[in-house]
């Protein structure tokens, strides 16, 4: 999905992991995934560049759908849909 499309996605849960470095954001995402329903979209806010590669890998392994990421000022948002 493009950054524009991602902005219109309804987000069920937002995880702010900007205060942690690798593997913090992944850990926060893992903890939050249990709180949303299947089909819900979660966004992960991170300033750790590795997160952009790590979240898609995690989604791929767990069967979740990785939607894409959008750059913000000094951080970015990664979007994924729960299996």
């Amino acid at each position, binding site marked *: 999905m493009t950054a524009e499309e991602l902005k219109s996605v309804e987000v069920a849960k937002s995880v702010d992991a900007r205060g942690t*470095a*690798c*593997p913090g954001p*992944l850990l926060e995402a893992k903890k939050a995934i249990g709180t949303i329903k299947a089909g819900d979209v979660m966004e992960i806010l991170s300033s750790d560049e590795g997160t952009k590669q*790590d979240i898609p890998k995690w989604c791929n*392994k*767990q069967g979740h759908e990785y939607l894409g990421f959008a750059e913000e000022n000094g951080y970015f948002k990664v979007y994924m849909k729960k299996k």
Partner: protein
Amino acid sequence: MEKSNEVTLEMLQKQVDELTNKVAYLENNRKDQLSMAIVSGDMDKILAAMVISVAAAAMDTQVKLFFSFWSLSALRDPKKSPKGKDFISKMFGIMLPNGKDKLKLSNMNMAGMGPMMIKMLMKKQNVMSLGEMFRQAGELGVEITICEMSMGLMGFKKEEFIDYPHLSYAGAATFVADAGESSIQLFI
């Protein structure tokens, strides 16, 4: 004629059974599991081991860590002082780092300046401390096994190790057996 048919059926059944067992064994061989033998006691190496372990556990991979030799220093609890050690064990205890906060760097240790600077940088860049990583690992169910043989060799006692929720003691065969069924095997 009838008799030879019976024999064939019996043989087929036997072959099917053998194959079923073999498939079960092979399937078990590639578990979504990470086995790591941790031998080094350098701060950087323990840090790398824990980052990988926490990441793997966060990805729902079962993690089994086997601590032996120098790495045992990282599991010592500085608040605990076991009694009844002989002279050599006491000397080892004094010479080896007492806990994960006292570990040295494999490079640029500079008499303790290096680890101090790394810890400062880690804090500044929001990298989890070793203590925090062990806490997270415990929460995620990362298993730690202490090598009995090296524990005895280095004069450590069970009473001086950290309180960790999934801690056990075993020998090399346990690591070999666990590693044999893991899809990821690492050594540091």
